């Protein structure tokens, strides 16, 4: 076959294939998802898609691993701008306003028609819906959600003369424990820190937990006004700074988010604050007995929720949107959600998932699996505003400035607040 004929033949076959698809083959959709925790997550997602495709021959879901949350958002928004977004994607719940402002997402409410659908929509933990709804509409379906919990090394507790079964209940205890747990060698160099609150990646998330415990939130629910310099926020940041600077029970300066679990495994810190999404990772890699607890309280208990929601793209055909909705609904059914939680450590998204047989037997064998769920009643929405990336960067930069000692706590928070005001003014 010469080249010209080959081209003609290819073009003809392409022309033949297209209409046949439109006339009733399975609806093809792609699903972009990120990975933010350890473990073989791609295999899990592939298997889920395969199972769904088997049960629903009229739909064909292709899962696409798209990098970190950040990279996934970049890919989804770029694809949206060029007119070919994936029908379904898993994005940080906090990117809701970004997606709405770009007109890239459609609300779920239009697909919720039958009473069964409605029951499903109201089945999620209310704490997870806070980052999924605004303006009376639901934009995201909770999927891989998390909160911050405290992990502690029981062996280190015993060595320090503490009760290995008792986690610190409040800020004072947390500080006192951390001081007892900090070990120094003969020349005064620290070999084990008492506690660790990481400050790269999502320092605003950790600060939000501290601020909540001290009685203040970071932003309003409309996402257009922040309160970064409120007294509770300052108290939280001051406590965080003092753990290292004043009380020498926490590594000084900026602590890496990514290596925090490793620091814990290597016994370089006796306690750590990190996402419950790391639970399976810690269970697999900690060579000592460990405990998982709710974060300590000050005025109250508190932790923001975190993690990813499923969102349906606006610029795809209605059939694809419908198929995406069906897949998302299936993924969050109690049985699937329970298995997903067991496999990863994320919090299962509905109370019903915790009533399934498989979840009950798992929790019996491994009780820490329930801590994050129990903390949900104290949880609030994660910081999310219009121009979310820009606003959180203003806060992140200044939190790091305060923790590394180049600004005072109040000056840093005032600067963050001023910058956020400037960014958010057009959205009121």
């Amino acid at each position, binding site marked *: 076959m010469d080249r010209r004929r080959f081209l003609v033949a290819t073009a003809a076959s392409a022309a033949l294939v297209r209409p046949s698809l439109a006339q009733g083959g399975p609806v093809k959709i792609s699903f972009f998802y990120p990975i933010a925790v350890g473990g073989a997550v791609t295999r899990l997602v592939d298997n889920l898609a395969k199972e769904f495709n088997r049960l629903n021959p009229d739909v064909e879901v292709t899962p696409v691993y798209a990098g970190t949350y*950040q990279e996934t958002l970049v890919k989804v928004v770029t694809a949206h701008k060029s007119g070919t977004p994936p029908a379904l994607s898993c994005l940080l719940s906090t990117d809701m306003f970004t997606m709405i402002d*770009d007109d890239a997402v459609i609300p779920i409410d239009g697909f919720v028609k039958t009473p069964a659908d409605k029951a499903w929509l109201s089945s999620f933990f209310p704490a997870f819906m806070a980052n999924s709804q605004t303006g009376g509409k639901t934009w995201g379906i909770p999927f891989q959600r998390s909160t911050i919990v405290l992990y502690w090394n029981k062996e280190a507790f015993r060595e320090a003369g503490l009760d290995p079964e008792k986690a610190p209940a409040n800020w004072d205890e947390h500080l006192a424990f951390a001081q007892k747990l900090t070990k120094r060698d003969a020349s005064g160099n620290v070999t084990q820190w008492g506690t660790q609150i990481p400050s790269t990646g999502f320092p605003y998330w950790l600060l939000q937990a501290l601020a909540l415990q001290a009685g203040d939130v970071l932003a309003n629910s409309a996402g257009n006004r922040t309160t970064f310099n409120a007294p509770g926020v300052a108290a939280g940041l001051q406590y965080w700074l003092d753990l290292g600077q004043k009380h020498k029970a926490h*590594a000084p*300066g*900026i602590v890496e988010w990514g*290596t925090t679990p490793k620091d814990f495994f290597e016994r370089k810190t006796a306690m750590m604050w990190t996402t419950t999404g790391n639970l399976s990772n810690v269970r697999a890699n900690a060579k000592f007995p460990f405990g998982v607890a709710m974060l300590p309280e000050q005025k109250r208990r508190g932790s923001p929720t975190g993690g990813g929601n499923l969102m349906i793209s606006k610029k795809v055909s209605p059939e694809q949107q419908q198929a995406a909705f069906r897949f998302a609904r299936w993924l969050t059914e109690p049985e699937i959600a329970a298995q997903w939680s067991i496999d990863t450590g994320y919090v299962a998204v509905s109370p019903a998932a915790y009533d399934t047989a498989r979840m009950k037997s798992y929790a019996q064998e491994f009780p820490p699996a329930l801590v994050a769920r129990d903390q949900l009643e104290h949880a609030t929405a994660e910081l999310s505003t219009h121009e979310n990336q*820009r606003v959180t960067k203003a806060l992140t930069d200044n939190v790091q400035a305060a923790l590394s000692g180049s600004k005072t706590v109040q000056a840093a928070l005032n600067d963050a607040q001023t910058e956020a005001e400037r960014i958010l003014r057009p959205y009121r």
Partner: protein
Amino acid sequence: MKKSHSDALIGWGLMAPAMLFLIAFTHWPAIASIIESVYSTPRARRPSSFVGLDNYEQILADPVFWQSFTNNLWFAVGTIPASIFLAILMALWVNDRIPGRTFARMAYFTPTVLPMIAVANIWLFFFTPQYGLLDQVMGLIGRPATNWLGTKDTALWAVIMVAVWKEAGFFMIFYLAALQGISPVLAEAASLEGASRWTFFRRVQFPLLMPTTLFVLINAVINAFRMVDHIIVMTRGGPDNATSLLLFYIYQVGFNFWDTAYAAALTVFMLVLLAGAAAIQYGWLERKVHYS
């Protein structure tokens, strides 16, 4: 007349495929950036409008930009001379007849072959406080643990170190090739004259390496403004923008904040900067270079 006409046609024909790609992926994006930089960023509810030089005024008033710019200058100062110096040193070393020469050459070149993302992840663990490689070595001589990437004073130098380590081996290859091209007659003549090793290098080898140095210098300057992979992996510009470089900031503005017009203005600024650097190097330095 007719013949030169068809020659020109063939010439253009041969150039066309390459030109097409250059225009599509280099020239057009550059021009599009310039155009986009004088409009505002389109938002779903606010279409793009002509704003003149507003985006450029914003650059002048943007503290994060100025910090990235200063960081980038320090990054250039830290990486360029150090990596060129090391490259010459390594090239001279493996140019001699030493035992295990092939192995040494390969070892020096290895960092260049490794992907930057992987390299940055390895260094991330070198720099980890307490049990990281660097701190373990420091611990042996009794120094306390240092949070290399988490302290504003050390973070930039830490990423400079990674860049030097990565670049030196690459530049070494060019120097090695140039050294091999220097006629052995010169070395014999020098030794007959009783010139010391240092004099031979300063008076003969180094001047003859000047064309290579110019080439390497231009590449080093471009790389100093082009490297972001390890920043993304190791620090994401933190702590508090201490390691934010220009291109990383452009990426952040463009793809995290989606402020495409402002990112375009920043890109134009960087283009002008690099074009200026290249013009100085080719226009002024080249006249001082001795081509043998």
